């Protein structure tokens, strides 16, 4: 059991969260029994491929799941000691953008093309802090310079299409951190950006995190990005958490065959000069259909070490080593 101290440090605690989508083809079990905590001031990486449920988890926290057809069918989301899932929509609105903020993958489309940057950043202040238009604009300029946008007085009156992709993502960040949120959820914030710009944005986020003491939930499919920014990592596969550990532990001792497969399947810079060129180790097959999930372990059909019990029984997420949880019959 958790001791008193860790509970105090926990900012967000997700317990047994399941989010389903009811479609004509059947029920999509996008997120199934997900548990994890985000500590105060820490960065949690959520790693997974498209369709693994990482974004749906984030949207569930924000309660931005389109409903219908989406539905948070069970679980609890404790944020600063209160269950967000019991909040009214009005209470939730006062949380969004103020206590918990979110930035998205596509900075191109995530900003409204017909309003100025200043208008869109200032809006947060007008809504959550009751500032008037002039004060909001001043604050916006302040935020723009904080996120490293040159000549913010000029940029504040520009429209999104006049900015580069990296600039837009900075604007998104300025918008998100304006009210000093306790948690910033970043859903693939650098995927649409070039590597040199990605490096800038990651540095910016890490810097802001330190300065403001906020927590970050970093959602990405990129193992490199997660290595650079997060303290702890949660690996998701087909709607479930399959592995959870500190970041270095994951790279040194990956325990779940999926995590291991993922690590081995990507080319790593310089590896071929150290070990000689070898073919990449593929993960065979595909992600299971979330509507007709197989019984037993969801990774069984792709697992190189699959055994009979994997096909029959669902493994649970268990702590194998201190702070290292795995959902696998064969681990440990």
């Amino acid at each position, binding site marked *: 059991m958790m001791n008193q101290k860790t509970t105090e440090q926990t900012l967000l605690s997700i317990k047994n969260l399941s989010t389903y989508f009811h479609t004509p083809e059947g029920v999509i079990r996008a997120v199934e029994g997900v548990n994890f905590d985000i500590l105060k001031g820490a960065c949690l990486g959520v790693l997974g491929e498209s369709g693994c449920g990482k974004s749906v988890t984030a949207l569930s926290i924000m309660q*931005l799941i389109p409903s219908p057809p989406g539905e948070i069918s069970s679980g609890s989301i404790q944020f600063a000691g209160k269950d967000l899932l019991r909040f009214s929509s009005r209470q939730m*609105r006062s949380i969004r*953008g103020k206590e918990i903020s979110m930035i998205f993958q596509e900075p191109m489309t995530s900003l409204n093309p017909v309003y100025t940057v200043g208008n869109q950043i200032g809006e947060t202040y007008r809504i959550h802090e009751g500032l008037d238009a002039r004060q909001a604009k001043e604050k916006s300029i302040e935020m723009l310079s904080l996120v490293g946008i040159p000549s913010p007085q000029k940029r504040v009156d520009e429209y999104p299409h006049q900015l580069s992709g990296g600039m837009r993502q900075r604007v998104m960040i300025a918008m998100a951190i304006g009210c000093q949120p306790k948690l910033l959820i970043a859903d693939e914030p650098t995927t649409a950006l070039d590597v040199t710009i990605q490096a800038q944005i990651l540095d910016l986020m890490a810097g802001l995190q330190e300065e403001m003491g906020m927590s970050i939930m970093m959602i990405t499919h990129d193992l490199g990005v997660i290595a650079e920014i997060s303290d702890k990592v949660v690996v998701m596969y087909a709607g479930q958490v399959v592995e959870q550990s500190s970041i270095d532990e994951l790279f040194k001792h990956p325990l779940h065959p999926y995590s291991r497969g993922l690590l081995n399947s990507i080319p790593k810079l310089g590896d071929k000069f150290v070990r000689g060129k070898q073919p990449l180790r593929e993960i065979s097959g595909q992600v299971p259909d979330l509507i007709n999930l197989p019984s037993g372990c969801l990774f069984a059909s792709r697992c190189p070490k699959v055994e009979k019990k994997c096909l029959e029984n669902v493994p649970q997420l268990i702590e194998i080593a201190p702070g290292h949880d795995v959902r696998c019959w064969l681990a440990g």
Partner: protein
Amino acid sequence: MLAYIIRRMFQAVAICLVISAMSFFMLFLNTDPALMLLPPEAEVADIAAFKKQMGLDRPVLIQYKDFLGRVVFHGDFGQSFVYKVPAVQLIMERFPATLRLALAAIVFINLVAIPVGVISAVKRGSFVDNIFTFFALMGQAMPLYWLGIMLIIIFGVWLRWLPISGSDSFAHLILPAITLGSWILPVNMRLVRSGMLDVLNKDYIRTARAKGLPEWLVLGKHAFKNAILPLVTVIGMQLGLLLGGAVVTETVFAWPGMGQLVLDSIHMGDYPVVQAVVVVFAVCVVVGNLVADILAALIDPRIRLN
């Protein structure tokens, strides 16, 4: 922005020219206005004399050049063959009433289409949405002149609520405007609906919600302005269609616009009048489009600043 508008104006003028040329040459396809206008027993010599008098015996291209020169520099379309007065005068006496009807219809259309379309989109799949959609389908299937007649029968003859002809008061405007508007209304309603649905799926709407904005701000500020864009660009185009529709509506409601005059002129091959009508319409259409373009540019900075 300025270059954009200037370019649009050039295009507008070009469109006017093309339309005037189209209307001019179409009349020469195979009619001979002289034969139409003179009594059937007219002698060949009479016909020739008439042609000479009206300038119809010269080559077509020369006639067009003259026509263009007169129109552009003097606003002169020539004398009506039938009424023997300048065609422009005939048109200008009646045009304001037609324009009034068309503008009334535009106001009616969009006052109804925008809220209905927005509600339909926001409540997609609901009972209200289905009802609106069904009415839109019905509206599109309804010939407008028939609707006019039915409205006259129901509200004018049976219920006696509204006047059925003339243009003396605001009440006179109601039935014709509804009749004329019902034709375009479903189109615009569906345009607003689909525009709104489209926008509601955009990432920036998710961003707005993630900021904690109340739903009325999300819809009213972030969605609406984007959703309305496609509508703004078609309203200009619709002015032309409505002017055409007005001609028909007027004949049903005896509205004192150019309706009957236009139909009679076409019937009788009174082509100075037809040409004048066509060009006046073209100018309206072009001005309408220009206004729509400017409106669109004002709403959308991507047009304005590029």
